């Protein structure tokens, strides 16, 4: 796109970077808009789904029939609320913490492919980049807890950070299985590998990836401090954990960070395990012929259909996480920690081992008919070796 823009502006070479910069900014704005709508949708969905689960209506007054403008109303309220900084808080860090916890999650969307070609920046190591960036979010929590100056928010922050840090390990481990199956860390390739009918999705590839998927779900929920694992708010004397002292806009940034993280983790899970933009029935292939057909319009339409598939799956994931919150009680902090280290992590390791054995022993799947494009382990080795030979 950048190349096309610079020709259109007929810029001489050394001014080319202006075109690249504007394209980058454009993509950033689109992504920010997308993240904001995702967050707004998530907050609205949270209140509606919670209402339905509890046999009540949820917001219905603000804006039209189903109260769909409620997030806007919340946002407005939060922006106009007074933004106070506690007396013995560390002002500089207090201001920095919310943005330190929101920015990484925004980074995740940069590498997340919405459809075949629709990815802000095509990372070769997208999955690894996303896991690394998700790790950054922890520091926002620690800083928020510390900078608030009160013993309780520090305790809350520490407790939540410990949980997030310890759940990242099984999360990364279970996310490695699709990488193993697809042979690369490039999410677009992983998505490609799951084309065709829904049984080509990695979650149905073999029993080990199925187990890994559910471990991924648990760790995703725990890693973003959601639902049954929101320990900090639970403890009676920690009140609201690290963001007790925040109010107004800063608090809403933390709030957005949480929902954006939820959407990001759902998105990653969908691409890794549930076939990303490939719908359960390969409609795109029937309608628009093989994937990379020539005419841009057809190409665009198939990518659009892919994006719709992806977004629907993400919505289902988010609604699932929300419904978890309103049905299950909270486990205790030591139960959460022991579940992570005694159950999730060993199981993830076992699943990883099982998947590798499965791939080696049954290269083309249980029923003998191969996998559309997924290169098994040795194949990926062969592919890499050939590529090396030809400089």
């Amino acid at each position, binding site marked *: 796109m950048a190349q096309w823009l610079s020709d259109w502006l007929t810029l001489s070479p050394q001014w080319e970077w202006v075109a690249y910069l504007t394209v980058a900014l454009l993509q950033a704005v689109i992504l920010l808009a997308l993240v904001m709508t995702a967050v707004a949708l998530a907050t609205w969905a949270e209140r509606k789904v*919670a209402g339905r*689960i*509890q*046999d*009540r209506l949820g917001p219905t007054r603000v804006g039209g029939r189903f109260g769909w403008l409620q997030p806007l109303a919340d946002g407005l309220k939060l922006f106009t609320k007074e933004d106070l900084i506690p007396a013995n808080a560390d002002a500089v860090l207090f201001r920095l913490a919310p943005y330190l916890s929101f920015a990484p999650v925004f980074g995740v969307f940069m590498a997340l492919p919405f459809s075949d070609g629709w990815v802000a920046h095509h990372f070769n190591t997208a999955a690894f980049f996303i896991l690394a960036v998700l790790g950054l979010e922890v520091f926002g929590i620690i800083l928020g807890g510390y900078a608030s100056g009160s013993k309780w928010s520090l305790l809350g922050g520490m407790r939540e950070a410990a949980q997030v840090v310890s759940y990242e390990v099984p999360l990364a481990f279970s996310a490695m299985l699709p990488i193993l199956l697809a042979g690369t860390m490039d999410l677009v390739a992983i998505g490609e590998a799951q084309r065709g009918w829904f049984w080509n999705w990695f979650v149905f590839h073999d029993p080990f990836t199925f187990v890994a998927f559910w471990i991924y779900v648990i760790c995703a929920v725990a890693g973003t401090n959601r639902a*049954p694992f929101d320990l900090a708010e*639970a*403890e*009676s*004397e920690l009140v609201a954990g690290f963001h007790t002292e925040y109010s107004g806009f800063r608090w809403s940034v933390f709030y957005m960070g949480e929902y954006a993280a939820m959407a990001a983790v759902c998105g990653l899970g969908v691409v890794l395990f549930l076939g990303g933009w490939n719908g359960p029935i390969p409609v795109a292939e029937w309608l628009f012929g093989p994937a990379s057909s020539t005419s841009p319009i057809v190409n665009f339409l198939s990518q659009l259909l892919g994006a719709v598939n992806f977004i629907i799956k993400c919505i289902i994931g988010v609604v699932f996480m929300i419904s978890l919150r*309103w*049905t*299950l*009680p*909270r*486990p*205790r*902090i*030591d*139960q959460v920690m022991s579940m992570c280290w005694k159950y999730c992590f060993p199981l993830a390791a076992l699943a990883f081992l099982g998947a590798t054995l499965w791939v080696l022993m049954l290269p083309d799947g249980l029923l003998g008919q191969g996998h559309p494009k997924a290169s098994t382990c040795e194949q990926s080795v062969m592919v890499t070796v050939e590529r090396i030979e030809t400089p």
Partner: protein
Amino acid sequence: MNVIPGVDPEDFSVTSETEVRTEELLINMGPQHPSTHGVLRVVLRTDGELVLEAIPHIGYLHRCAEKIGEKVTPRQFIPYTDRMDYLAGMNMNLGWALTVEKLLGLEVPEKARHLRVLIVELNRIASHLVAAGTYGLDLGSFTPFVYCFREREKILNLFEAVCGARLTYSYITVGGLMADLPSGWLDQCEAFLDQFEPVIDDLHDLLSVNHIFVKRTAGVGVLSRELAVDYGCTGPVLRGSGVDWDLRRDGDPFYTRMYRDYDFEVAVCRDGKYPQPSPPVPTEAVLGDCWHRFFVRMVEVVQSVRLVRQAIEKYRLAEGDIGQPIKLNQKLPPGEVYLETECPKGQMGFMIVSLGEAIPWRVRARSSSFCNLSVLPELCRGCLVADVPAIVGSLDIVLGEVDR
């Protein structure tokens, strides 16, 4: 335990080599606190996550109702009994009314007796619903709370139709009841009971057999039989420890006469099984832990529904009217009487000492939550900070009753 005697904890030079020195923390839960069910202040001395000692402080809601009892006639004291356990106003009224009737040697007509059983058992259901809902809240699940309060609203609507009030009824008074049932009320009540039974199963699915709930409550705050009796715990807290004792069956004859022709089972865990229409007991649950205390209340709700249905039949068959309460300033015979009744929280005892005038000489209220709460330090020693709300919630205390 890890503070070495004679060493000033602030002195850094001495760090016992075997031990990473952890700082003991004094955490102050309450008196305004989301999970202490009212103005209860618990000071926790903790070492990291571990609670070394829990010291409850009460008295924030003390109105000295007993002193007021010496200034008003028994019928005028009824509204004060409502404010003691404000979640079970009817049971409190009944307790006081029966105590004075025992002193007067008064017997209410059949129709009034059945109506009293009906109203009191409905109030027990409402109180247990609050207990179950707030216990779900203490452990983090919000939905059961909403379901419980939706059902409780329907009961409060029924009470509002009967006596005009939703919380402090003053409906059962000495010598009978303030008014008879409005027409059509019994059908509404039956309609409520019919649609209420499936909700109990929902609550069981949401809480009693929910794995995380069981993990949070089974084996936590175990109260042995001897300790429960020693601390004078009564009601679901006593039955949760396996003691087969229910005043409606084994109480003072003057009180058990009221339930003489009703059949119900006492909700207690007899060799691993509860009275039947209830899910199985999970394996991790130890007799006397938070789970059992919670489950006893759920089983009691089922028994109360049975009692209300029988009371409706008997009320329809009983002829005559519900009789008249005693005059406002009727003279009391000299004497001293103590009577305990089975309230949702436990055995609520009332004592009246009269020297022959209309105003009693001394009024005494023995509160069940007062004794149930006194066992808290015993249960919280060595548990985790996250267990304290679970234990306090399982005791189901109401501070109005504790402080009187």
